[in-house]
């Protein structure tokens, strides 16, 4: 077993600097690397490019880095519900590259899997395809999209072990497994770091080879963005 365990978030983020490109897992506030984000806020590094499906809300998730103006460019599919984001974007302070969600997912997967680029139908005929190569296969049009390149990927899992194996819970899985191994260094924070051998080898979502550092996260807030319930009848 190759040991990936580090003691805390500080050690896990060694080497992050200004001007880097980061991938951050999560959909909305679900499955986001809360500990890594807090540490990035504390470190005050800036001029960052962040690849993440969403941009958090004003006072949680990536919203915290936005408030601090640490982010220079966001690559996301959906950025609603964030006033500070909208302000920075419309004022031109923040560069935003909107990418169809399936394309965003596959650009991560391509980076993980060593594919340089791929053809997808998403965005053909729209401004997303502007300046990009398009091509017909079997009578349908596709857009060529390159794989992402990033320095660090920050992901959040439910359970993990020292070998770097990860298991996610529910829809908190989302982009997290795709970002593992898609950046030079992948840092995983887990709710529960279990002893080696506890996880069933047949039920690993992300094999440890895709993870360089893993640590036990602290105080996960796990906020709910839209609390919807029904009454008991």
């Amino acid at each position: 077993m190759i040991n990936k365990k580090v003691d805390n978030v500080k050690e896990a983020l060694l080497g992050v600097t200004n001007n880097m490109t980061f991938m951050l897992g999560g959909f909305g506030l679900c499955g986001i690397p809360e500990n890594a984000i807090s540490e990035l806020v504390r470190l005050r590094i800036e001029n960052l490019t962040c690849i993440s499906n969403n941009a958090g809300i004003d006072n949680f998730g990536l919203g915290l880095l936005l408030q601090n103006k640490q982010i220079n460019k966001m690559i996301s599919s959906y950025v609603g519900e964030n006033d500070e984001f909208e302000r920075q974007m419309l004022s031109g302070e923040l560069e935003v590259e909107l990418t169809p969600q399936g394309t965003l997912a596959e650009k991560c997967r391509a980076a993980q899997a060593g594919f340089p680029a791929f053809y997808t139908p998403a965005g053909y005929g729209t401004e997303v395809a502007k300046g990009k190569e398009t091509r017909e296969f079997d009578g349908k049009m596709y857009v060529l999209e390159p794989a992402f390149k990033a320095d660090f990927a920050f992901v959040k899992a439910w359970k993990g072990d020292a070998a770097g194996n990860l298991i996610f819970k529910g829809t908190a899985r989302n982009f997290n497994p795709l970002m593992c191994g898609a950046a030079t260094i992948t840092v995983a924070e887990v709710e529960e770091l279990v002893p080696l051998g506890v996880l069933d080898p047949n039920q690993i979502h992300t094999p440890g080879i895709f993870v360089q550092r893993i640590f036990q996260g602290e105080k996960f807030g796990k906020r709910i963005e839209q609390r919807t319930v029904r009454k008991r009848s």
Partner: protein
Amino acid sequence: MLDKIGIAKRIAKEVKNGYYVNLGIGIPTLVANFVRDDIEVEFQSENGVLGMGPFPFEGEEDADIINAGKQTITTMPGASFFDSATSFSMIRGKHVHLTILGAMEVSENGDIANWKIPGKMVKGMGGAMDLVASADNIIVAMMHTNKRGESKLLRRCSLPLTGVGCVTKVVTNLAVLEIKNNEFYLLERAPGVSVEVIQNATEGTLIIEGEIPEMDI
């Protein structure tokens, strides 16, 4: 004239036995409530769940189990969770049979615009561009006109497009329309709405063939 619930009810009739269905945010989400319970249907949400159930009972919300609208949900027996790449494999690979989503504009050739108003609103396309680029069966749920009373069924969309030539059907507060041959075909009128009202509210080419029945919802 239908309200949002009415639109959802009418669209629910388009959901057939054996369908996997992706519901967009807003009116489409309501459709799930009105699907006949004697047919087999599964709802997919692109953030990574198949087999969505109703909202949880109070106190049973789980922050790790949400839909694409970021609402807390439950799952049905036989459900599964998966990553976003697998989710869009389902969509891009045409395994999802029906996509229902909202729109700001639809044109007579089936273009749709629903993600951006230049200089005003830029929330992003989320999964909509993937959905409309891949699905064979795309129903748009929307009001027939915008807040200024202008038609949303146009010759050409004025807003940035989400997808081209992809919408197959539109269900509005006034009518059900099919898009083919670069024209809107009027199929049904909302209760109490005349063909003339629909004609006046439709900027794109409207084809009216024979007697147009009133919706049965």
